[in-house]
Structure formats: C-alpha cells, structure tokens
C-alpha cells in the first residue's frame, strides 16, 4: 500500500524531499528512503523526468510519429527489429502496436528535413522494414498526464463555511 502511494506521489512530483514524503505517508524517513532505493534497484522507478514546454524556450524541435510495418523474424519476433530502431538516440519512444501497423516510433529532430532524412536513410532501409508512414506533430495539448496550458484556476472564495 505504501509502495503504491509513494509511487503516485513521486510520479506527480519527483522533487519532493524525503522528509516531506515521510510525513505525508506517516512513515519514518529511513523507511521511505529504503523503499525508494528498493524501487530504483528493482527498476520500478526507471528515471526521474522533467516535462518541459520547449516551445516557450524558443528552441525549435520537430516531433513525428511514424507508423512502421515490419516482418517479424524467426525466434525473436518483433523485438530484434524494435531494438535496432530504439537504439538510435533520435528515437524517443517505440511501441509495438496491434492493428494496421506494427511499431509506432516517436522521433524528435531539429527540423522537418532532418526527420525526413532519418526516416528515408536510416529507418526505411533497415532489413525487414516493409513501409513507413510519417505524421508530424503540430501542437502538444497534454503530455504524460499534464495539460500543457491549463486555464482552470482556483475560483473559490477565500473563506467559506
């Protein structure tokens, strides 16, 4: 139970100090620290991430979702080909999908041109890749459960019964 709650708290805000987490969960600091360490070692907590609205920084990046159809290989199925793709640092996420295509690949690059180039020279040419369809992302509304520009605010009165 504590594990679950701790994970939910950290997922929401990874920067919470251990002292604060301990108070919130009604546990000792040592217990919380041990639990976090265990979760990290078991790779349940994989990494602490920051969600950044890059658009606001003036840094221009382009993100694309690429539907990839591949031929599964004997013994390793889709995994070996997936690995060849996810090893590229330009690739942000890779998912195996059911339905019309096999892999959904999320790519990030400095420009449209460079992404197109990566797809045509690196991705499409891998043996076993049958076809690719590239979709460019135009706007991010919500990322990892967080609404990027949330207009809902606290409209409550300052003191109520």
């Amino acid at each position: 139970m504590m594990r679950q709650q701790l994970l939910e708290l950290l997922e929401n805000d990874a920067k919470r100090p251990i002292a604060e987490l301990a108070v919130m969960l009604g546990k000792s600091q040592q217990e919380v620290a041990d639990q976090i360490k265990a979760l990290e070692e078991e790779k349940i907590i994989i990494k602490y991430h920051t969600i950044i609205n890059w658009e606001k920084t003036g840094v221009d990046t382009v993100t694309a979702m690429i539907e990839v159809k591949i031929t599964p290989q004997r013994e390793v199925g889709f995994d070996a080909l997936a690995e060849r793709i996810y090893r590229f640092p330009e690739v942000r996420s890779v998912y195996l999908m059911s339905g019309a295509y096999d892999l959904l690949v999320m790519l990030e690059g400095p420009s449209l041109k460079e992404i197109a180039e990566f797809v045509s020279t690196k991705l499409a040419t891998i043996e076993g890749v049958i076809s690719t369809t590239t979709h460019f992302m135009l706007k991010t509304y919500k990322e990892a459960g967080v609404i990027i520009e949330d207009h809902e605010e606290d409209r409550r009165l300052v003191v109520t019964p």
Partner: protein
Amino acid sequence: MSWADRISPTVRAIPPSGIRRFFDIVAEMKGVVSLGVGEPDFITPWHIRESCVYGLEKGYTSYTSNYGLLELRQEIVRVTERDYQVSYDPRCEALITVGVSEALDLALRAVLSPGDEALVPEPCYVSYKACVTLAGGIPIPVPTRMENQFRVTVDQLEALVTPRTKVLLIGYPNNPTGAIMPKEELLRIAEFAAKHDLIVISDEIYANLTYDAEHTCFASLPGMRDRTILLNGFSKAYAMTGWRIGYALSNPDFISAMTKIHQYTMLCAPITAQVAAVEALRHGEEKMRKMIAEYDCRRRFMLDGLRNMGLTCFEPKGAFYIFPSIKETGLTSLAFAEELLKSEKVALVPGDAFGSSGEGYVRCSYATSMANLAKALERIERFVKKRL
C-alpha cells in the same frame, strides 16, 4: 419605523455567520494564503462535468419529480446499502435536495414545533443552530472538548436533555474539528436517543473523508433507521460544492413531510446537477479514492507542522480540517486570526465562529495544494514563535 425594524424578530435575533464577518476583512487583501476554505480545491472530475454537458445536449432541462430523479435515488440507495448495510426504498424513503443545507432545513422544519429543543454538539457547522431557530426550535449547545477528542458523550447529553427535547443533531466527521465518532460511542448515543425517544438528524456529508478509521453510519445502528434522518451529498467527496446536490434518507413519513415543504419552496433540485450526480455515483469511486488519499497526506503534513511549532493539536480523523489550540499564545481566536492575517497574510477561521466552545482554537482547512500548505505553515510558525 425603519425598514430594519420591520424585519421579523426571529431573523433579527440570529447572528450573522462568523465566517462571513471574517470574509469581509480577507476579501480586501492581496497575496493571502487561505486555509479558510470549506470546500475541496479539486475541480469536479472531468467525467462528471462531461456527463452534465452531455445531459444538456440531450435536452435535460426540465423539472424532475419533487423527490428528484428516480435514477439518482436508486443509485444513492444502492451505494448507501453497499457501504453501510442499511436499506431504503428509493420511491418513498429518499429525497434529493439543493445541497445538504436544504435537507437540514427541511428536516428541522418537518419535525420541530415552536419551543421544541434540539441538542446540538458544538463546535459545529455554522448553520445548525440558526436552522433550528428558523424552524421555531430552541438550539441547546452541547460543548465538546479537545481532551475528549471533540466527541459528544451520553453524560453531556443526559445533563441537557429535557421533556421538550425532540431532536439530536449530529455531524460527524465534524466541521470544524475533524473529529469522528467510533461505533461503540455511537451505539451509546443510539441507546440515549431511544431512551428519550429523540429524532436523530445525522449530517454525514464528510462520511467518505475518514482516515485510518471506518465511518459508521448512524442509521445503520440497531433500531436507528426509522428514528434517523440521514443527510449526505456530493459536495465534499466528489468535489461538487457548486452543483448543490444533497439528499435525505429516512422513514416514509419523515421523507413525505420534508418533500411537502420542498415541493412548495424549491420544487426540485436542478436536473443538470442531478444528471451529473448519477455519473458521480456510477463511475466516480476511483477519482474520489485518489482525492481522499491526497487529503490524507496533507492531513499528516499539517498535523506534523502545527505540532512541531509548539501548538497543541488534536489529530483529526475526518473531513479536511485541523483544529489546533491557540490558547498558549494568549490570544483569542478572533485576535489570532486577525493578527495572523494582517502580519503574515494567512487566512483561517476563528474557532468561535462554530460556537462558543470553539473559542481558543482556529480552523485550518487543508483543502489546498501542498505548496500552499507549506507556505502557510512557514508563516504561521513565524507568527506563533513570537508569542510562545
């Protein structure tokens, strides 16, 4: 004769809510961190809001039955039976009201005759005593104490019960103290109610917000179902304060008497909000559990913070309030609240707004973000350190 002189003496005699008076001071200030809010900081979960929008698109804009949508009454009865093993007939033992506030008013007006007395444990929600008075009754405050975890005891009640006592009005989990009543103690209260043949009005609006303990529904106690008017609603657990939906469950005679008043004064609760309430009961459980878990974290955080700065603080087990004693500072509740607001810009509510037994305490609501709570604690600590 001025217009003011022509106002009914009953209304004139009722003091305005202590919270209101304080609100007027706060409203002028900027940069205030507020622990004074008696409603969730969560906005109503999206699926509930979306169901209301859909309802509007579908043309749900008419009156409903005086009792409220049957669908909603059925859901309420189902959930009440599931959670507390007490059953009601949705056709004649359930009434949907405009918030618990209306349900409380109806219940009191339905059963009180002029001069009847109602026992009201204090500190309590600001409306209780005023509503008893408006219904023609006489509120008899029963002061509870921190040393007894703000629970009401049979001894206290026995000392104040008279042949004119008709109603016992309880509200646990309690606003403002955060106190709850364990089952064994409620059983003794039930025995007392039966012995004196009292009607029990039980406001259980914070029932779902109970921590490290289980809520006992008063109507579920042996022999209490028909004697109890059980009040509950959606405001707190489902973060639906502004929707104004509450309900009453009781025997058919009480419910039909209350419905008589309701049909002449209110007709029915808004259908848009009733549609949303159905969705809340059908699919709102998971979101509600998440909110409760979050309140629980904040509750521990506040208790720890207030105790660490040297204030005596009783551990609340329900609602989203914490009620520290500020007696050690030598200030009255009102002076503490006013000076804290002026010097540190933290708004909380003086305890005496909830009855004279609340003097010496302040109510802090933790229905606000952790960041705000941390900021508020820091400021309160600076304020308190100078006075301890």
